[in-house]
């Protein structure tokens, strides 16, 4: 009997889980107003003369993949991909020259399986900002690739941008947004913009 009573709080709260299971949850606590705005009807409305209880909503979402399934960098990048893509699209459209452009997106990321996810999310974020996005890919010749891959990243991306424009792979009026990881220890993305052979680092 004593054991049942003592473990009762563990049973009542879904957050009282072993640490491994807690790591699968991402939770946020919403105030009454936020909860009503985002999830109407979950919390009872506040009484006109105030409430004796401080009601909040603890909103938890479970990760799609278990933490150990993906590489930590992939997990971290993909978890907040929507926010990162929106921020990058905002920065890119602000930095791009005025005029009508066709936007291309490429990603240089260590895991090839993640690359399409990054480019797709970024294209969607760009389209939400009302720009024209193309699925066309840019490519370099074998000689260019051989030279550029030997360069430091800070020089390689501007050089590649220059060669894209010179080789005609990047046409006049095209804007190329490139996402990349520069250091194997980081969990966020860098980005740069290539327009008419001129490279601009965004972040």
């Amino acid at each position, binding site marked *: 009997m*004593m*054991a049942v*009573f*003592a*473990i*009762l*709080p563990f049973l009542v709260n879904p*957050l*009282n889980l072993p*640490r491994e299971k*807690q*790591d699968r*949850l*991402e*939770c*946020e*606590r919403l105030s009454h107003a936020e909860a009503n705005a985002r999830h109407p009807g979950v919390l009872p409305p506040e009484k006109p003369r105030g409430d004796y209880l*401080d009601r*909040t909503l*603890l909103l938890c979402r479970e990760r799609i993949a278990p*933490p150990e399934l993906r590489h*930590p*960098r992939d*997990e*971290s990048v993909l*978890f907040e991909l929507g926010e990162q893509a929106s921020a990058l699209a905002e920065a890119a459209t602000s930095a791009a020259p005025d005029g009508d452009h066709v936007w291309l997106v490429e990603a240089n990321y260590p895991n090839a399986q993640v690359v399409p996810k990054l480019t797709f999310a970024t294209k969607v974020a760009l389209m939400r900002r009302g720009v024209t996005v193309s699925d066309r890919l840019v490519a370099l010749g074998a000689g260019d690739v051989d030279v550029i891959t030997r360069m430091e990243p*800070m020089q390689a991306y*501007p050089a590649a941008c220059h060669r894209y424009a010179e080789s005609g792979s990047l046409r006049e009026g095209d804007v190329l947004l490139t996402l990349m990881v*520069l*250091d*194997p*220890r*980081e*969990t*966020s993305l*860098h980005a740069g913009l290539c327009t008419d052979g001129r490279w*601009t*680092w965004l*972040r």
Partner: protein
Amino acid sequence: MPLALRPPPVSRAVRRSVLAWLGLVVGLSGCVVRQYQPLSTLQRPVIVDPTLPNFADLDITVHCVPGELLTRSRAGVLCDKVGLLFEAQGANVTTIDTEGRFAERFGDAPEGGETDETPRHDLILELRARKTHSSNRLFSWAAWAASFSVFPGVWESSFAQDVVIRDGSGFLLATHTLEGRLVTRYGLGHALLVRLADVGRARDKRVMDSLGRELSEDMYTQLSQLMLNAKLHWSVLQAASAEEAP
């Protein structure tokens, strides 16, 4: 014969009940189980290894802003610990734990005006802590009293650690909020169960002492990762501005 001053008579029942409560309080002092649970960002996977020199020769200023959850002394302790964390990774660390000094230097700069002062720091880390929620479950405390501590009394609170990273000129590089929850259970029955469950477990796996260990581990690894990401962004922006300069 002088009259002796005697204390007023105390009934045996009152003395017994006082002694019983004192005994209960003393006996239950070891029956507090505090647990930490990550809510947001604190459990994100990290790649950086805090034992390696990730910030070699980098000048980092750690500013712990006293506020809701951080008293001045706690801010000092936090700054010392975070400072040690980055020093162990090769950084030259300066800590600021008094309110206002940072604002004097960056926050009150004239709008649009340029100062001649050369930034003395590469990166500046600002830490603030606030309470986002607390709950004292009255039902559990009523049950605790009625059951003579077989039921645990439960008190919980949620906190948010706001992390802001700027470069030496005050340019914002990153902002993050790390959120967690602390649950305190007070009661003989629960503590006995936890202690029984901990028997045979390695010291770093015991629930009884998990609060400080797990919270520190999560907090310091996340801070290292966030700082490394910010450092790399700062390096890119530095290199880009150097290329653009005539």
